[in-house]
């Protein structure tokens, strides 16, 4: 057994990190906050690097890798706070034309959520609604006719992710060859991977600030009250990492529910603690911290929320 990353996986992770650092640095992040529309040039570039087609077979023009590799890419995107429908892109690549190459943006919406939320409503040319089915209604991934979808945009709490409520989405025939329970599972796992990346990044940000910020004549990171916050953050991130990576290996529904639960907790609570370590600076718009917290809140609401995960995990006990 070797649960650690293979050399290829570590190289993939490092490559994704380097690409994002180079092409989506602090200035670009700041620009994106002011104008939250996906940068189509960057999106095509990331697509060319395989960010979207990571699991598409090579014969279909993809990279031909597996769920663990997709998780590593999403983790890096989460670290970098990359805006854009990455999870939807990875899951719909190959199923919706132009998504794998970054030419077209697609939104993937959970039809069971209330309200049904749509990310990047203006930029997404395609809206696919996942209907998990109900008695008398078959499950399916429905591609909605672009002109027929009605949306009610609202002020998204996350400055990097515009949101709308879907108010009308007449269904056409379900997309063939898409397994709905599997799509739902994988959407939850890839979202958890983004949460993990954010949780790990906020540990680093808190530690860097605690080493540099001086009060009472010493770096605040030398005070146990601050140290212990940082240590708690690392524990959350590392537990989430073990859960997310294991779920990527097994693909098991229950493992994924647990991974999403712990990654949500790690991302949200680490962002909160990171904000606390930053003190007054953390409360400013200028600091990066609030962007992690707001995105973490958004992701926690998407795909297997805490209540659902906990109920499923409880059901599995002595079932």
């Amino acid at each position, binding site marked *: 057994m070797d649960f650690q990353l293979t050399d290829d996986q570590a190289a993939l992770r490092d490559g994704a990190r380097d690409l994002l650092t180079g092409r989506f640095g602090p200035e670009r992040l700041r620009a994106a906050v002011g104008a939250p529309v996906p940068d189509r040039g960057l999106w095509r570039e990331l697509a060319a690097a395989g960010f979207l087609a990571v699991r598409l077979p090579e014969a279909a023009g993809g990279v031909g890798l597996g769920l663990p590799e997709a998780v590593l890419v999403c983790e890096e995107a989460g670290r970098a706070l990359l805006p854009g429908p990455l999870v939807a892109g990875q899951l719909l690549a190959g199923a919706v034309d132009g998504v794998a190459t970054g030419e077209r943006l697609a939104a993937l919406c959970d039809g069971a959520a209330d309200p049904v939320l749509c990310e990047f409503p203006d930029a997404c040319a395609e809206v696919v609604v996942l209907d998990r089915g109900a008695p008398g209604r078959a499950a399916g991934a429905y591609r909605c006719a672009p002109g027929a979808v009605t949306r009610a945009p609202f002020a998204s709490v996350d400055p990097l992710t515009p949101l709308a409520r879907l108010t009308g989405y007449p269904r056409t025939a379900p997309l063939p060859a898409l397994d709905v329970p599997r799509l739902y599972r994988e959407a939850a796992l890839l979202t958890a991977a983004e949460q993990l990346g954010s949780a790990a990044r906020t540990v680093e940000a808190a*530690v860097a600030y605690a080493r540099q910020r001086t009060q009472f004549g010493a770096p605040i990171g030398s005070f146990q009250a601050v140290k212990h916050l940082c*240590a*708690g953050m690392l524990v959350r991130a*590392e537990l989430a990492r*073990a*859960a997310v990576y294991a779920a990527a290996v097994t693909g098991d529904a229950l493992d994924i529910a647990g991974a999403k639960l712990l990654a949500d907790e790690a991302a949200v609570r680490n962002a909160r603690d990171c904000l606390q370590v930053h003190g007054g600076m953390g409360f400013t718009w200028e600091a990066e911290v609030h962007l992690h917290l707001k995105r973490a809140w958004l992701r926690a609401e998407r795909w297997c929320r805490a209540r659902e995960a906990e109920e499923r995990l409880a059901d599995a006990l002595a079932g």
Partner: protein
Amino acid sequence: MDLACTEEEEDFRAGLRAWLAKVLPALPPKPAATDWPGRRAYDTAWQRMLYDAGYAGLHWPVAAGGRGATPTQHLIFLEETERAGAPYVGANFVGLLHAGPTIAAEGTAAQRARWLPPILRGEEIWCQGFSEPDAGSDLAALRTRAVRDGDDYVVTGSKIWTSHAEVADWCELLVRTDPAAPRHRGISWLAMPMDAPGVTVRPLRTLAGSAEFAEVFLDEVRIPAAHRVGAEHDGWRVTMVTLSFERGTAFVGEVVACRRVLAGLARAARANGRWDDAVLRRRLGRLNAEFAALWRLTQWNVSAAQRSGGVPGAGGSVFKLRYSHARQELYDAAAEVLGGDALDADHPWVADRLSALSYTIAAGTSQIQRNIVAERILGLPKGR
């Protein structure tokens, strides 16, 4: 990222399972918790069975009489023995997990030959004389004095939290040999026979009602200088070489056991109607995720140790911090499931709820572990 075992590892697992299935039904009944001589006999008999079957000192180096197994094989051993309900390491804990590895790493050839085989064969029990009334988290403040007199050290002082002291043959003892030196540089590591004149053991009753710990009083105990492992005054380093071993794999079997208890809580809650309480149900669901992830974290840490040549990293502190808290949460949830029965001290879950309180204190308090994580992993500056 791979969770699958190799063919060799699966063969090891299959062989172990077959052996456990053969020997466990023939084991005598477990002695009562208060029957110390009975517990010693039971634990050492089990160790002897492991020895005869070739499983003793699995993770010890071959040169020390061990089997030089990989961290993954050791993990499989701990997982399978717990699953099968085999006896816990018990009174052999200090010998197998700390004193033995210390002697293996730092002892002379003669010392290894004298002390290691009896540990592996279950013939001698060790206890740990580290903590003192005024030296707990701040272990380097220890004051038990050892004065050289000819070929002996004459040792006076007291130790506390010494588990299995009443049945131990040997004590791995930290003493101050140079009171003038900086704190960490005046300490030596001695092997003390527990039947030496001047050694008094007084059982210490814990809040769980049991007496698994003891205080050990030392009044001019003579210990041959040949019983010192490592150089004089170098005992701090000698001890720290292997202290992280204790944190690496000590709780593997317990995580397996906790997952079994959690399933038991769910069954009990379904039976007594408390399952209808969504708050309790969700709490149990979260604990399910927690213990599943702790198992994955163990596999992650073991894989890391395997890559670094068997050295457990600081990942052990990360694991212990979360596990000790989760264990307490588990038994708090058990109390919620039990309702009024949670006041019955004889209920096994209640007894375990009480003993779980030590987990955030023993083997490095959670506060000390957070300092370790913050300073050694995150690189935050030392301070107060």
